[in-house]
């Protein structure tokens, strides 16, 4: 039976070079696209593309809507509360669900008595889940759901506090909450292990006796082989989709002028989605409709169709507004499956939203890490060898690698890595905003900083020597300028409060999801609509889609209606891996272009001119050769022979093809961040005063939204660097800070002044040439802050979060 969480893969690709070759076009054409960075040697690149591709989109300066600061399409609805999130959905006759969850980190269920819960007034159904390893859900495996019986011997072992056991559906949330407490259950508790280091020891309690067959990549590194599992240790992973070991590492170290070897540790961070995970499932004879707080409507549909053996056409998943996912909201999830089961049992819609505590325990987290990084440096600063070993725990799940940054950020001929997953009795990890790479950068960028110091070089200039990425070089230059890097004098303050400056950089693979389709409709009344199952997870997808279509049709963004987040529409990509903008906007533009050509064809017929002579701009349709032939868009659509023009298009391959498989584009998205901090050497308190973040995301479609994403990434990075930490009680296995009071997110006073530098970079990759920004924005922040802290106090912190406790300890004060 399928396992929905298994598909929680964030990246659009587990690149399969065999799957498809490059697409051949029956009719193609050559077009010249902008290439490079305006003001910095912008040129043109010729690409051979399919004949029906739209003409090259000029650089932003020459456009009217795309590239302009544009207000969010749904801003008003959000700030007035009119926007309906999954949590706001109310359906007639709706029931409310509540889970019974494991109170023990490791236990066997000895007996289970549902009778009192079932009898409780207002309860309509109780269901016991069959779980499988990895915290994921199997539907009805081993027992007959409709008969509401279960086989006690087949009930799963409980492996973490919060593991779902059963759930009730009742007429109100209050009734459900009370009823679930009436489920009587006896446990046989078993020894458990929570800590990364202890779980690796020989006689540690074992989380999974059986081999975990899953081979997943949470987007961090490659796929860990299932056969390499010993005790709680699984791995090592020695390669990613960017390749494996290269060169001769030992020789590289032998050639080094000096070698640095350091250990770094990072903590578990939880996603803290403002809207918790959850669904409203409505099982009807002709259609299963599920309102879901998800990053991937199409993915949830596919999971549910498979699990409940329904045709995809009979499953509809809707996500109109979404309150944050950060990688954790893929797949139907155990709550989605449970709500669907309960709805099927009761014939009523069932709402099942996690509460804040459950959100921390079971909805995913960024695994912790223990990284041992060894690097050799030549006299000239070039890196001669990198050897990385890492351990991390995603609890009962996989995917605790530390990413591809050591492998790929800097030039280095000799490289090897061994990344291990370690199972513990804790809630499952999930992809989290640049999975792995955020952990990896904290280590790598501190090492580079140390090397620069050893070499007596400025950290910015040093990176110019070892980093051959052209765009990132520009980011360093412009970022340093905005930051005033040259004039910064570190740590020289006489008092106990020291000021420091640091920088770090990162990169992110340019992922494309080819399952990105959209329809554009032009109606005879002049209204225009876009439709796709792609969801706006808060990043502003609706707005950029409206901008792209408006640009194509010569209209304004607010003239376009955007209907997305519904699987009745053509499939859009899941919003993860920073793929959305780069994947769906070319599809949308191409659909708009097709619709436009259809419309212009009809106008050209009426005017008796060539289609190629017609242009749509500023709300008008006109002939370029005959200025007397001009009318408004509103008049032009009246010439339509049908009430609607409908055009659908899908994301073609990148112009010029992919670097790997069917979705890994050429070029990496670079990012560079600079941080200024104050460190109180007597209290250990760190304050991040200012961050300058220099980024590129291809063509910035809406600079205002790019800034928003960067701001969010930096803020999340500040939280990761200084405050956030999932704290487990080692004696009971409970998370002691599973709330937003003692789990510390950065709030108003913790947020530094953030300045953004956006490099407008054209790679001639698609009809919009846009790329993502969500993840790149989060990668370098903690590294930059760590380097700034070192710069301030002259002592390096190798462990996150950098709390007052750790600062004082590092300074030898406590």
């Amino acid at each position, binding site marked *: 039976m399928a396992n929905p969480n298994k598909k929680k893969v964030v990246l659009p690709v587990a690149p399969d070079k065999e799957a498809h070759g490059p697409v051949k076009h029956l009719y193609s054409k050559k077009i010249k696209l902008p290439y490079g960075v305006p003001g910095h040697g912008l040129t043109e690149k010729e690409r051979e593309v399919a004949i029906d591709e739209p003409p090259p989109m000029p650089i932003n300066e020459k456009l009217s809507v795309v590239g302009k600061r544009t207000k969010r399409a749904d801003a008003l609805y959000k700030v007035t509360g009119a926007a309906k999130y999954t949590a706001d959905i109310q359906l007639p006759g709706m029931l409310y669900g509540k889970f019974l969850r494991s109170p023990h980190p490791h236990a066997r269920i000895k007996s289970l008595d549902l009778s009192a819960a079932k009898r409780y007034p207002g309860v309509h159904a109780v269901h016991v889940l069959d779980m499988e390893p990895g915290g994921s859900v199997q539907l009805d495996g081993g027992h007959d759901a409709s008969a509401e019986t279960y086989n006690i011997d087949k009930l799963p072992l409980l492996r973490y506090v919060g593991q779902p056991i059963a759930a009730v559906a009742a007429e109100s949330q209050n009734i459900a909450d009370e009823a679930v407490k009436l489920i009587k259950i006896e446990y046989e508790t078993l020894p458990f292990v929570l800590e990364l280091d202890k779980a690796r020891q020989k006689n540690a309690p074992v989380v999974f006796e059986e081999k975990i067959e899953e081979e997943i990549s949470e987007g961090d590194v490659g796929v860990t082989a299932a056969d390499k599992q010993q005790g709680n240790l699984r791995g090592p992973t020695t390669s990613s989709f960017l390749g494996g070991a290269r060169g001769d590492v030992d020789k590289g170290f032998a050639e080094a002028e000096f070698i640095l070897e350091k250990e770094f540790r990072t903590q578990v961070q939880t996603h803290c989605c403002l809207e918790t995970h959850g669904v409203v499932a409505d099982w009807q004879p002709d259609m299963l409709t599920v309102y879901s707080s998800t990053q991937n409507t199409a993915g949830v549909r596919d999971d549910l169709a498979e699990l409940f053996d329904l045709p995809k056409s009979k499953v509809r998943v809707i996500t109109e507004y979404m309150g944050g996912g950060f990688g954790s909201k893929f797949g139907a999830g155990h709550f989605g499956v449970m709500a669907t089961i309960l709805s099927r049992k009761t014939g009523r819609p069932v709402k099942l939203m996690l509460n804040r505590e459950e959100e921390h325990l079971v909805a995913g987290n960024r695994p912790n890490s223990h990284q041992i990084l060894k690097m050799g440096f030549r006299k000239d600063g070039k890196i001669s060898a990198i050897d990385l070993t890492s351990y991390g725990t995603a609890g009962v799940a996989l995917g605790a690698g530390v990413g591809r940054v050591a492998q790929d950020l800097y030039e280095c001929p000799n490289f090897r890595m061994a990344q291990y997953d370690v199972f513990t009795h804790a809630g499952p990890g999930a992809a989290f905003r640049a999975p792995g790479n955020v952990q990896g950068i904290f280590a790598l960028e501190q090492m580079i900083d140390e090397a620069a110091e050893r070499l007596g070089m400025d950290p910015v200039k040093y990176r110019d020597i070892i980093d051959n990425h052209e765009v990132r070089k520009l980011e360093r230059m412009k970022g340093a300028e905005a930051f005033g890097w040259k004039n910064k004098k570190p740590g020289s303050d006489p008092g106990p409060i020291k000021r420091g400056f640091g920088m770090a950089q990162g990169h992110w693979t340019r992922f494309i999801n080819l399952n990105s389709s959209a329809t554009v409709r032009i109606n005879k009344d002049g209204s225009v609509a876009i439709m796709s199952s792609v969801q706006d997870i808060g990043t502003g997808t609706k707005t950029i889609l409206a901008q792209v279509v408006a640009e194509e049709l010569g209209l304004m963004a607010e003239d376009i209606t955007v209907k997305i987040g519904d699987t009745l529409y053509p499939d859009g990509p899941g919003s993860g891996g920073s793929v959305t903008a780069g994947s769906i906007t070319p599809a949308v533009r191409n659909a708009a272009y097709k619709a436009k050509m259809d419309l212009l064809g009809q106008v050209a017929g009426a005017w008796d001119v060539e289609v190629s002579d017609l242009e749509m701009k500023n709300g008008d349709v006109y002939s370029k050769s005959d200025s007397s032939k001009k009318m408004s868009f509103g008049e032009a659509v009246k010439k339509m022979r049908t009430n609607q023009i409908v055009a659908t298009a899908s994301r073609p391959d990148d112009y010029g093809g992919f670097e790997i498989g069917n979705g890994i584009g050429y070029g990496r998205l670079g990012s560079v961040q600079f941080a200024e901090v104050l460190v109180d050497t*007597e209290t250990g308190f760190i304050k991040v005063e200012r961050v300058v973040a220099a980024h590129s995301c291809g063509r910035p479609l809406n600079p205002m939204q790019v800034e928003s994403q960067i701001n969010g990434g930096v803020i999340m990075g500040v939280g990761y660097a200084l405050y956030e930490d999932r704290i487990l*009680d*080692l004696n*009971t296995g409970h998370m002691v800070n599973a709330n937003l009071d003692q789990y510390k997110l950065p709030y108003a006073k913790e947020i530094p002044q953030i300045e953004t530098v956006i490099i407008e970079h054209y790679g001639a990759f698609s009809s919009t040439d846009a790329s993502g920004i969500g993840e790149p924005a989060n990668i370098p922040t903690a590294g930059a802050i760590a380097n700034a802290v070192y710069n301030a106090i002259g002592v390096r912190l190798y462990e996150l979060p950098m709390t007052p406790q750790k600062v004082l300890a590092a300074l030898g004060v406590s």
Partner: protein
Amino acid sequence: MNRFEYIKAPSIDEAIDMMDSTVPEAMVTRKDGSAKVVKAAGTDLLDLIKEGILEPGRVIDLKNIPGLDKLSYDKEKGLQFGPMVTIADLENSPEVKKHYRALYLAAAHAATPQIRNMATMGGNLMQRPRCWYFRSSAHHCRKKGGTTCFAQIGQNQFHAIFLTNVCPCVHPSSLATALVAYDGMVELTGPEGKRVIPLSEFFTPSEVDVTCENVANNQEIITNIMLPPVNEGTRAFYSKHGQRESYDWSMGDVAVVLQMDGKKCRDARIIFGAAAPIPLRREAAEAELKGKTISEKVVAKVAEKALEGATPLAHNAYKVPLFQTLLKRAVMEAVG
């Protein structure tokens, strides 16, 4: 959240009649859901109910009782305020700001602006500790009538460094730190009438009774909080240190109230918050300061004295240097 009866008390006498339990008692010996407890703004009470660790049978709201939200200042009598005065009221009172600087600073740095607008001072003194085991329904710890202190053997980074033997939770009120430093008094009204006691005796350490934090009885309501007048030579300061600056509990806070004769310190109150299960007076440090002219050197000695006898737990040794620094800075600020 359990179902309970909700009543608005029209007067203090009636409220006393309607109630029959303190919250601590309701959580330990009256868990049958019959306890009748009072509520002010509910910022703490409702949290306890929602967390499932308090299940009262009746909640008696004090907010309709007239006259409990008055604040007055008199040069001779000092400051006096009712239990329904909010933290924001203190923060916004020109008299408090002018004469009771440490209290003003404590008010201005507590919680968040939104909570300060709601949270009352009666409730603030009566609020329950924030120990994460205490707040978790999964941990039946000593304070809730159990036998184990999970913090002593577990995650205790934010716990006490003094009086750690029985229950090393820290007192959650950072306002109390300042109030105790001003030799504040509290008036309790019960069926037998009123009693007035110094706040330093109001708060009780866990050794006395681990299940509660103060001497209030089952049918007692705080009806007034009084601070003696300050004089020309009074110098005070308060500072609170949290992991974050916004919306955070204290990792350590310090209030100092000094009576100065010119440059010489005639008398001193030094109180530590978040150091012990009660706002903790540091008498040895006060004695060290008395009669001295304040200098960096003197203050360093005072800080050392103040931390004598600290018994930090496995994860909170950092609090020792933290308190030393906070105290040194607070004294210098007070006179500076």
